[in-house]
């Protein structure tokens, strides 16, 4: 795959430039869609339910940081899952390393994430965000976790999707849940306390979700510094993040194996 870097670059460029062809707003949609989503969540969680229940200071920024990471995950995961079927014509007729498709899809999602990250940076800066090196490292680590997580899952679901289009619908559900099963709309304290009442392992499980780590890393990176609140970042965030990162690497390997396994049949089944 590394030998086909030039092809990868062209595939990414194609993905980027054809995405919003023939739409007047073009890449503006990259802002409009998340902003709409953001406005709704902000209105409901912040205004109606009262500042995210947990009384989160600077809730606007808290919410934005979380939504931007989860969006990256959703985009990358969905694109990668559909990538093989979307490139049916090629897969069927020409021999080329098929991993290129999910990988290109994830890169396109990443490029798509950049303008949103820019908005987030500007908003944070307006709120007095002056990043420290540690905070920047947290942001990078969070991004890395999300990208790897989406790539690994995307390869598995993308491969399965060739034979069973159910995978696409399943991914839709995961997308919906992703926002709720990570501390985007509320503070992790709320849920972990509740879960711990049921069983300590449940709270741990929640924290082990790599997305939870990534969201909290983004909160730490963008939001934490702008608050005077003494609300701590989750205990052992670093440990959970590193475990999450390791899990993502394992997932990528599993993804590769599954992908290889199914790849032999792509051309005839797709």
């Amino acid at each position, binding site marked *: 795959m590394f030998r*086909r870097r*030039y*092809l990868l670059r*062209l*595939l990414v460029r*194609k993905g980027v*430039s*054809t995405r919003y*062809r*023939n739409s007047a707003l073009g890449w503006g949609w990259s802002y409009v869609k998340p902003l709409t989503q953001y406005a709704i969540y902000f209105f409901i969680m912040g205004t109606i339910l009262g500042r995210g229940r947990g009384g989160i200071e600077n809730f606007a920024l808290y919410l934005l940081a979380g939504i931007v990471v989860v969006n990256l995950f959703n985009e990358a995961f969905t694109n990668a899952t559909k990538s093989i079927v979307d490139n049916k*014509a*090629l897969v*069927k*007729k*020409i*021999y*080329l390393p098929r991993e290129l498709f999910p990988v290109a899809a994830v890169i396109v999602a990443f490029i798509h994430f950049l303008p949103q990250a820019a908005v987030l940076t500007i908003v944070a800066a307006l709120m007095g965000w002056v990043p420290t090196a540690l905070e920047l490292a947290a942001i990078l680590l969070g991004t890395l976790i999300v990208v790897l997580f989406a790539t690994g899952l995307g390869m598995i679901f993308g491969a399965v999707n060739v*034979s*069973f*289009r*159910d995978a696409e619908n399943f991914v839709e559900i995961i997308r919906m849940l992703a926002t709720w099963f990570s501390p985007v709309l509320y503070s992790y304290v709320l849920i972990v306390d509740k879960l711990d009442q049921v069983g300590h392992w449940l709270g741990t499980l929640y924290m082990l979700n790599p997305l939870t780590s990534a969201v909290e890393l983004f909160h730490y990176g963008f939001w934490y510094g702008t608050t005077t609140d003494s609300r701590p970042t989750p205990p052992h965030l670093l440990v959970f993040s590193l475990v999450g990162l390791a899990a993502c690497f394992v997932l990528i390997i599993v993804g590769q194996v599954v992908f290889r396994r199914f790849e*032999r049949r792509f*051309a*005839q*089944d797709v």
Partner: protein
Amino acid sequence: MTTVTAPPKLSILVENVRKTFLLRHTHSFKEAFISKIKKKQTSTSFDALKDVSFEINEGESVAILGYNGSGKSTLLKLISGVLEPDAGRIRTRGRVGALIEVGAGFHPELSGRENVYLNAAILGMSKKEIDERFDDIVAFSEIEDFIDSEVKHYSSGMFLRLAFSVAIHVRLDILLVDEILSVGDAPFREKCRKKIRELIGEGKTMVVVSHDVGTVRELCDRGIVIKKGVKIFDGPVEEAIEALKNQ
């Protein structure tokens, strides 16, 4: 390699190849699951190729003949590596280029120029190679004036011209051609044939699938006839054409 009377080098080896397609009757988890419970068959298998063997030497030009559904395209896909055989083995020497269906990688929303780059890269060319050959590719297709407009505005003939032109300019050692010599208008077809004859002259290995007896006669000197997945004849092209008619 250094002997004076070098034996012809093997270019394509196909040995006892079988290709089985599973025709699945289920396309969702639910269907698959229910069939499992009811112990119904979820698929039937079908041999598209059965125990096919042959060798093709470097510089040979071979036609694969057979009626619809006999397994010709499947065979070319196996040689190009798109499909993998279920039994037997296939070896090729050098870069294999498959003109199985030209234009597979074309994207209608991109311009002709962007498509040339994308497709040449898909077919295995590096940026440098494409830069070098870009003008030749466009000149061959004769659509210079439209190269920067979107491919969706092309006529179907223009589209095929450009696609074919890209494919034919990829540097390769083995060329697999499936039913594409009938693209474009008469002058362009003639040009394509000429180009292919040129490649044969350069000693490239060629495998051609075509229902057009004239094309086959003109381009190939050997023919392999396949009937329902079984090789029934392998020999000089005239005899192969006879064998096809009398099968």
